[in-house]
């Protein structure tokens, strides 16, 4: 259809421009990105099921040979139940903390009644640079963008793309992921940013003076209004002083079993309860005599949360840029 030689360069240019246009649209336009995620889910689904179903069938047959059919079913049911129970156990952590903090007030606002459903991670690989997984639930199961994804022991990540039958989840260890967290022991707030391939997270915006020790558990603070409050994210594995830099490097290892997980929990936190809980918590922080730096961290977390509020998470550089900007008034940031 084309003559060789002279038109080769021209064709190359045309397709390069076309690709560049797609890249720019994909990065800049949230609407385009959401539609593209839907489309990509539809296109990828046949390939994914081509890989996933034989593996599933093999696993199933494997189980069928070794045990009796009924036992297999029972086992599967029990596994689902175990995951649900474990997640409930994790919620008890929040309750405990609340009890200790406000024993006299027994208002039920801050406990988030979340609906959860079990989803399966498809046995397919994505680009190794991209720390994402594909779930077997999508639009039809009311999965929505930014939805939190958990497992029995911690936060897995959040939904970044929803298709008809599948959805894509950005793991907390991806460089584009930022989760507002707080120290379970003393309530110091921070943002946990993914480290990429190493499979760990880094806390940003922590002043040198703050009391954080190796082994501290960090739980979601809920300030982004997406994640449920008080769910474990990671434990402090390493604290590195950075010479003269007043900021320490704090590495978290994730609580969730990001590599081994086969089944995960999709949570539907109640937006209203979450907002109330966060507002209440922020007010409490204000009334208590707190060091100035800590208050700054609050506003920063909220700011970051708003940045990630879009259907697509912005590159990390932007997140930290937003976090570094001057803290704004809290009421405005929360609303």
């Amino acid at each position, binding site marked *: 259809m084309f003559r060789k030689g002279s038109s*080769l*360069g021209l*064709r*190359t240019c045309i*397709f*390069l421009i*076309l*690709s*560049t*246009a*797609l*890249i720019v*649209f*994909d*990065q800049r336009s949230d609407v385009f990105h959401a539609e*593209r995620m839907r*489309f*990509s889910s539809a*296109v*990828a689904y046949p*390939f*994914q099921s*081509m*890989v996933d179903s034989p*593996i599933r069938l093999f696993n199933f047959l494997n189980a069928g040979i070794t045990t009796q059919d009924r036992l297999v079913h029972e086992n599967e049911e029990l596994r689902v139940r175990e995951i649900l129970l474990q997640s409930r156990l994790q919620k008890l952590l929040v309750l405990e903390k609340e009890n200790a903090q406000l024993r006299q007030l027994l208002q039920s606002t801050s406990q988030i009644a979340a609906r959860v459903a079990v989803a399966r991670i498809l*046995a*397919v*690989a*994505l*680009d*190794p*640079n*991209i*720390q*994402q997984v594909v779930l077997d639930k999508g639009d039809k199961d009311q999965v929505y963008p930014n939805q939190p994804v958990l497992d029995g022991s911690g936060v897995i990540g959040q939904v970044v793309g929803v298709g008809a039958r599948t959805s*894509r989840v950005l793991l907390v260890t*991806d*460089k*584009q992921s930022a989760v507002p967290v707080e120290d379970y022991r003393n309530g110091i707030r921070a943002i946990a940013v*993914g*480290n*990429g*391939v190493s499979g760990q997270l880094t806390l940003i915006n922590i002043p040198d003076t703050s009391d954080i020790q190796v082994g501290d558990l960090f739980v979601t603070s809920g300030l982004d209004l997406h994640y449920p409050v008080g769910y474990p994210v990671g434990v402090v594995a390493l604290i590195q002083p950075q010479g003269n830099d007043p900021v320490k490097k704090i590495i978290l290892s994730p609580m969730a079993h990001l*590599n081994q997980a086969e089944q995960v929990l999709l949570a539907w936190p109640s937006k209203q309860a979450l907002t109330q809980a966060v507002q209440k918590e922020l007010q409490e922080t204000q009334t208590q005599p707190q060091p100035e730096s800590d208050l700054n961290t609050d506003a920063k977390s909220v700011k970051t949360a708003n940045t990630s509020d879009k259907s697509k998470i*912005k*590159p*990390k*550089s*932007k997140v930290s840029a937003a976090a570094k900007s001057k803290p704004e008034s809290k009421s405005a940031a929360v609303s």
Partner: protein
Amino acid sequence: MKAFQETNVFLIALSFLVAIVLTILPLPHWAVWLRPQWVLAVLLFWVLTSSEQSGIATAWVIGILMDLVTGTPLGLQAFVFVVLSYGVLRLRTIIEHLPIWQQASAIGVFVFLNGLLQGMGLSWMGHGAHIGLHTLSAITTTLIWPWIFSALNQLRPRALIR
């Protein structure tokens, strides 16, 4: 000629399908970076051997498909594949007549460039990228190229070449 081309198109499509399946097949954690770039290798084979049917346009379509299936930013792999195919088309007469292992090394260089360009693109877009680890897949692709080449060459109808 017409019917002949159609079978060839079917074979091309089938080879890409197999390559994509091999690309998204889950691997153990330690082996993830060793996975050969199946799709790129198959693409470069077709660009090299039957550029009448698979050239820049095919590279772009396959790149878009890969972006959709492997989750990279839309257009990134398409961009890189088009650049690499252009390079292969330009150097076609040289690469074609190289001894098989030298040819494999040449392909390895292209696969490495693929990792480099993709990694640069990903970092520029704020994703993490480990460009150094891509060298591993360039090596495995080099090692596997002679087999890909001879397998596809066997299947490819020869009448056109004569």
